[in-house]
């Protein structure tokens, strides 16, 4: 059977990878902010597909929700700031393009070389097909990880990976939460401008 001959995993990977990269490049070459944001959304959405393929479905959904949702805000501001002059775009000078492309190309070359240099990375997991569907469900494990318990490491030797009291991600989780809160409050404060304050400032 021809269909059976396909490696579906690879095929879907190719599909999502092409979408991701393609839209990223489209974003690079677009001048209109809203178009850029639109391409960015598609690119991020396609990379969420890659996450799902890699078995990280919680992260994939998270990516959709927060990353794509965050880009939505970018999009809105793009709309807001360009509502009056929709077709005025800021062109990049060609010199900058050449510089950026040369540097970016060399960086890409470097990264690609690195990616294929390591033997261990080049071969897929030979037993990937044997992993049960249910085993890829990581939500519970992630949730427990955040509360400080690594349920996937319960069987590991006592003194190797699980240091008592440092076993999970409780502390980083709390730190990130507080960080996020502070940042949001700060951002809201910064973005808020009072006309009167500004105009008196300008007058003074």
């Amino acid at each position, binding site marked *: 059977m021809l269909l*059976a001959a*396909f490696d579906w995993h690879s095929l879907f990977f190719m599909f999502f990878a092409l979408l991701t990269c393609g839209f990223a490049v489209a974003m690079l070459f677009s001048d209109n902010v809203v178009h850029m944001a639109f391409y960015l959304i598609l690119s991020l959405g396609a990379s969420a597909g890659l996450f799902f393929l890699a078995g990280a479905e919680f992260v994939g959904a998270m990516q959709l*929700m927060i990353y794509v949702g965050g880009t*939505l805000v970018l*999009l809105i501001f793009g709309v807001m700031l360009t509502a009056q002059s929709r077709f005025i775009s800021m062109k990049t000078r060609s010199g900058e393009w050449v510089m950026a492309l040369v540097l970016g190309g060399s960086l890409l070359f470097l990264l690609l070389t690195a990616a294929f240099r390591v033997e261990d990375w080049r071969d897929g997991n030979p037993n990937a097909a*044997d992993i049960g569907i249910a085993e890829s469900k990581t939500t519970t494990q992630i949730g427990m990880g955040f509360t400080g*318990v690594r349920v996937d490491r*319960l069987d590991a030797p006592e003194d190797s990976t699980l240091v008592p009291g440092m076993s999970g991600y*409780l502390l980083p989780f709390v730190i990130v939460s507080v960080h996020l809160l502070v940042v949001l409050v700060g951002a809201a404060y910064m973005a808020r401008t009072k006309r009167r304050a500004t105009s008196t400032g300008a007058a003074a």
Partner: protein
Amino acid sequence: MAEFFHTTCSLPTPLAYLVAAIIHCVLIIHVVAVGALIFIWLERKVSGRIQDRLGPTRVGGAFGWLQTLADGIKLIAKEDITPKDADWMLFKAAPYVGFAASYCAYIALPFSDGWVAQHMNTAVFFILAVLGIEVFSPILAGYASGSKWSLFGAMREAAQVVSYEVPLGMCVVVPCMICGTLNLVTIGNQQAGLFTNWLAFNDPFTFVVAVVYFTCATASVNRAPFDLAEAESELVAGFHTEYSGLRWSFFFMAEYGSMFLVSGLAAILFFGGWNGPIPIFQVLGWSESDGVLLYLARLGGCLNFLLKGTIGVVVMMWVRWTLPRLRIDQVMTTCLKYCVPIAAFGFLGALFWQVNELPTSNDLPGIGINRFEARESWVIEADQQRASRAAAVTPSPSDVPIGPIGSVEFDRVEALVMTGGAR
């Protein structure tokens, strides 16, 4: 279903998956598109009755049931106009973005026990995320139309939906917390039994949360009194002012699609999903049997679910044809001053109830089952994992056990949690 084709029809695995996928896609598209047809007809009938008139009567016999189809034919025949000032690409793409998002969310929505296109561990999360993406459609449409009214609609939509996602998420978390899973099938199955077992009646807080959820859901799918993005008396038609013909009707299909989606989600999360108020199939023993009887039980559950979702939709219609529209600042006030605090309060209350194992309506004398087991559903999932591994055809020696978190290990994990990870 793929397993069914694989085993019963002896199709090779990839082909079985392909066929199953196609069948699922077709089924869901029917739910969304045909559902939209029915709901638009229903909306007309409901609004007609509410407004002392008959609604459609002519097309298709007694109840005008072909009316929407006739409209559809009219819309197909209409000219598809793109305004001169429009951003061509985004203008064309916007309706499909909304429709695709609304459609995608159905992938994770179970229609009955196990009847789900993709059995997803993070179904609730996925549906919320995809519903969030649906907002792009009005925003892009509003921006790309090149009309100021559309732009107003887009900005309103953005402000509204992004804000309402917060209380919506909070409300959705409550059933997930009580059931201990994000898996909709598990949540639904845990509410089997009498209607006292439905999560809305679990404790007073969950009931409040259910009401808040429905309010926020109405707002997040842009239905009156929160239909500010298309407010016809202010913004003419808001984001879809410039659309015509079939492209315009895609907005409608998306709207009705997501209306049913959020109602269905409400049904599963709070109102027992596919479980009827009285567990007929369980009493008859059909749901534990297999073959045709099990299928019938599932089908009955599916009807149950569809009915509950439809009731939710009809309530939305009822509200729409009764209430005036709120103003944008009042919509935001409703969200930030009422919905968010109430949802947060409901969350804390439900948490308190759960932690202290206060009696639920299910614990009323004489009814129900003990819910203790049900609470630890991640343990159940671990058992499922075990089963799935056991069922694997070729157990491999290199198959490292990744999470022996079955019920045996439960005490150990609980101890870990209690001691903050220090063993």
